[in-house]
C-alpha cells in the first residue's frame, strides 16, 4: 500500500508516522507537502501530530486552509481512508471532516503519559485487528484534547457507534478518573458516519515496536493497512 503522510509547517510526528508504516509495517510511504493539491496514487492518508502553524489562533484552525486539505476532503469523499492523530484529529475537526471541537485540557496543562482506551467498535477497518471492548495502552501528548460537541451530535455518534475509543482504566472501566483531559463521554477517538475517516488523540505510532516496550498501537495501524487492501476507492478527478 502507498500511504501519504501530510506535512504541514509545524507537523512533528510526520517522521514517526513514516517510520512506523515504512520500517515497521513494510508499506510504501509518500510525504505530502501541504501545498500539494492532488493525492493521486495514494491508498490512504495520515494527518500526523504536531503543532501545525504553531497552534497559533487555535489548533488546526490554520492548517485546514492548506491547499492539501481540499484534496483530503475529496479523497475522503471518494471513500479513501484518512487517519488523523492528535493534531491531525484537531485538523479533521476544524476542516469539518469530523464533528465536534477540541477544548483545552481540563488541567490546562500539556499532558504526556500512557493512558488506556477501550475499543468501542471493533467492526471497522481501523480496528479490525482488535477485539470488541479490548483495552489498549497508548500514550497521549497534547494540551487541547478535551473533545466537545453538542448533545444531538453526541447522540448521533453514540447511535452510529462512531465513538471508536474511550478513555478507561486498566480494566476497561470508563470512569471520570480515567479521563485525562475532560473529554465529553471520555471520547478519545471518533470516526465519520461513512467509517473511512478516523480521528484520535492518542498516538498509536508511539507504541508499535517492542523496543519501546509497548505494541498496542500496532493493532490499529496494522488494521488500517489491512483495511486499505480491502477498500475500493473511487478516484475523483479534479
Amino acid at each position, binding site marked *: 500500500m502507498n500511504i501519504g503522510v501530510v506535512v504541514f509547517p509545524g507537523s512533528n510526528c510526520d517522521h514517526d508516522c513514516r517510520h512506523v508504516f515504512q520500517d515497521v509495517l513494510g508499506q510504501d510511504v509518500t510525504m505530502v507537502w501541504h501545498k500539494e493539491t492532488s493525492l493521486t496514487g495514494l491508498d490512504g492518508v495520515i494527518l500526523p501530530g504536531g*503543532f501545525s502553524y504553531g497552534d497559533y489562533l487555535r489548533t488546526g484552525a490554520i492548517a485546514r486552509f492548506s491547499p492539501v486539505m481540499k484534496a483530503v476532503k475529496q479523497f475522503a469523499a471518494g471513500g479513501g481512508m484518512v487517519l488523523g492523530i492528535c493534531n491531525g484529529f484537531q485538523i479533521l475537526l476544524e476542516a469539518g471532516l469530523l464533528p465536534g471541537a477540541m477544548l483545552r485540557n481540563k488541567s490546562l496543562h500539556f499532558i504526556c503519559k500512557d493512558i488506556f482506551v477501550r475499543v468501542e467498535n471493533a467492526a471497522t477497518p481501523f480496528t479490525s485487528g482488535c477485539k470488541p471492548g479490548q483495552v489498549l495502552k497508548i500514550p497521549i501528548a497534547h494540551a487541547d484534547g478535551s473533545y466537545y460537541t453538542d448533545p444531538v451530535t453526541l447522540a448521533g455518534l453514540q447511535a452510529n457507534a462512531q465513538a471508536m475509543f474511550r478513555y478507561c482504566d486498566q480494566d476497561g472501566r470508563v470512569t471520570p478518573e480515567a479521563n485525562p483531559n475532560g473529554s465529553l463521554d471520555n471520547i478519545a477517538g471518533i470516526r465519520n458516519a461513512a467509517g473511512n475517516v478516523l480521528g484520535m488523540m492518542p498516538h498509536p505510532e508511539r507504541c508499535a515496536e517492542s*523496543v519501546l516496550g509497548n505494541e498496542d498501537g500496532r493493532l490499529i495501524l496494522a488494521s488500517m493497512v489491512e483495511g486499505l487492501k480491502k477498500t475500493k476507492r473511487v478516484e475523483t478527478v479534479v
Partner: protein
Amino acid sequence: MNTPAVMITKDLIAQHNLTDDEYKKIVEILGREPNLTELGMFSVMWSEHCSYKSSRVHLKKLPTTGPRVVQGPGENAGVVDIGDGLCVVFKMESHNHPSFIEPYQGAATGVGGILRDVFTMGARPIALLDSLRFGGLDTPKNRHLMKGVVAGIAGYGNCMGVPTVGGEIVFNDIYSLNPLVNVFCLGIAKKDKIFLGTAAGVGNPVIYFGSKTGRDGIHGATMASDSFDDESEQKRPTVQVGDPFQEKLLLEACLELMAGDLLVGIQDMGAAGLTSSSCEMASRAGNGMELDLTHVPRREPGMTPYELMLSESQERMLMVAKAGKEDACIAICRKWDLDVAVVGTVTGDGILRVKDQGKVVAEIPAKSLADDGPRYERPYQPPEYQDMLTNLNYDLLPDVKDANAALLSLLESPTIASKRWVYQQYDHMVRTNTMVRPGSDAAVVRIKGTNKAVAMTVDCNSRYCMLHPYEGARIAVAEAARNLACSGAEPIGLTDCLNFGNPERPEIMWQFVLAVEGIKDACEGLAVPVVSGNVSFYNETNGLSIYPTPMLGMVGLIEQADQTMTQWFKQDGDEIILLGATREDLGGSEYLKIIHAREQGSPPLLNMDAEKALHECVLALVRGGLVQSAHDCSDGGLTVTLAESCFSGQDQKLGAVVRLAQGRIRKDAVLFGESQSRVVLSAKPSHRQAILDQANSLGVPAEVIGSVTGARLTISLGDVTMVDVPVATLHDRWALSIERTLNQE
C-alpha cells in the same frame, strides 16, 4: 570612516560594562576611538558571557580529546563518533538570568538556543534534558518561577517535536533569587556531514535567514554578565521572546540546506546576534566579512546599526553559501516561509566591515572581536567561613529514632520527590525513540537504523560543591558516569555548564578553579572527554551567590539496545545485592538538611579506582544479562534508593525485605548516608553466585542484602526493624508531593 555621532564618554563605557583598560585596548586595536556601534559590538563580544574572559585560562586544563571525539569545545556543540557512520552532537547551556526576569520566555528561549546550537552542526536534535534549580516551594514567587520555567520549556520543546526525556531539579533557598535553567540537547548527524561555523572562501555570499530582526534582547549577553539587584525586574526588555514554530521551520530548512551541496559554513545568531555570528565565522576561517545592513530583514523601520548588530531576536541564522548557490539556498528558505536575504560577502582582509545605506558604520578586525578579548587570571582564595562549613561535630546530632518518619520526610522533600508534575508537561516520546523515560537513573533513546541506544544524564550535587568544590565536582562526574553504567551505557563524552557567582570575588573564583580541577581529574580518571560547555557567572543577587553548581551532562553508548537497564525492581523473589561499601558519610547529605536542617560537613569520600571498578562491574553484569535492575545510590542514601527501586516502575510496585549488618557506624549513616560508589541491584537467585564472583574479581564489595517480596519495604539493622512501611504509602508521599505543594494556591 564617518565621525562618531555620539561622544564616547566614561559613562557610556561603564554602561557597556567595559573597564577602562578594556576600552584602552579597543582604541589600541582600532588605532582610533570607536563609534557607538563599534563600542556596542566590543562590549557584547568581550562580555564574560561571550568571551569567557575569567574562565578560559582554567577551562584549557580540561581533557578534550579521545578516540571518539570528532569536535571538541570551540564550536557550537561537541561531536562524538558512535560508529555506523553516525555521531552524537551535544551541548548544555544556561539561561539563568533571563529565566529569573521572565521565567516563561527565559526558559523557552534557552531551549531554542541550545536546539540551534545542535542543528547548526548538521544534526537533527533527538533529545532534551533540563537541570533546574529553584528556591523552596513555600513562597509564591518560587512557585511562580517554577511554573513559568516548566511551561516555557514545555511550550518550546513540545512544539519543536524534540522530546524532553529527562533531567533533574533541586530545591534550595540559595536559588530563590537566582534560579538556574540549564538545558542539554543531543542530536544525531552523519559523520561526513558535520557543519562548522566557518566563513571560508573569499567572495562567498553571506546569507541571513530565519526571523526578522527586532529590538528585543539587545544587550542580553551583557545582562547575563552582571549581577542582579532589586532593580533587575526592569531588565525585562533584555529578555528575548521565542517563537518555536519559526524555529521548527528553521530546523527543517537548515537540514534541507545541509542535505544539498550548498553550504560552506553556518552559525546561529545566539547571544550577541549578528555581531557574534559574523565575526566568529570570519575569525575561524582567518577571513573578514562585509555586511550590508540595508538588506537585513527587520520588524520595524528606523532601527539603527547599533540595534541591528546587537539584537538578540531569536530564530535567526547566518550561512556562508558556495558561490553561485544563492538561489538554491533562497528557494529552500522560501519553501519554509522564512525571511532570507544575501547580506554580505566573505572578504580576505580579516576585517568585519558593516555598512548601512552605503556608509561604513563599523570596521573592526574580526579576530580582535572574536578571539582577542581580555583574559583574566583573577585572584582566588577560599572564603574565611569554609572551615566552619566542613567542621561538623556529629556527636551533637542524635542518631535516628524514627526511621519510618525520616524516610517519609525525605521522599516528600521536593528534591527527592517525583518530578512527574514536571515531565508530564513535556512531550517525552515524540520521535518514537524513548526507551527509558524520565524517572530512571538516565534517559535512553534508541538510534533508528542501528542496534544502538544512547543514554544521557545531567547531574550535580551543588551542596557537596559548596562544601568542597573540588570533591563536589569529582562526585558529579562520578555520579553521572554511574547513572550511565546503571543504564548499561559506557560514557563517551561530557558537556559542562558551570554556574557560579561573581568571578571578581576571590572566593567565587576559588570555587570555580577547584571545581574545574575536580572535573578535570575525574574526567581523566574515567577517561571521559569534555567536548563542549558553557560558563554562567554572576549568579548573584544583592551580594548573595548561588552554591557553586558545575552542572554536567554525560552521554553514554549502549551497543546493544536490548541490553538497556532500568532502576526499578522487576519480580517478586529476586534477590537484592548492594555493590560498594557503606561508610559514615553524612556530610552534605539530604538527610542532614531535611532532618537536622544542616548543610554542613565534608562531602562523601570518593575513590576513583573503586568508582571505576564499580562501573566496569555493573556494565559487565548488565551486558551479561545477570541483573534485573540497577539503581545508583545517591540523594537520601541506601534507604531512599531501595524505596525508589520498589515504586518507580510504571507498571507495578513491589515490596522488599532488607537486612543490614549493624556495623560500627551510626544507624542514620547506614540508612541515609550518601557514601559514593554504590549501586543497588536486583537479580534472579540463580544468578547470585555469578554476580558475587564478578564483583569479587574486580575488587568491588558485594553483599546480598535482601529480596524483593510482598508489598512493604522492611529494613532491619542487626535484629532491630528500622523501616517498615507499605510501599503504597511511600509511593503516595513521593509521587504527589510536588503536585500537592503547587496546587495549594
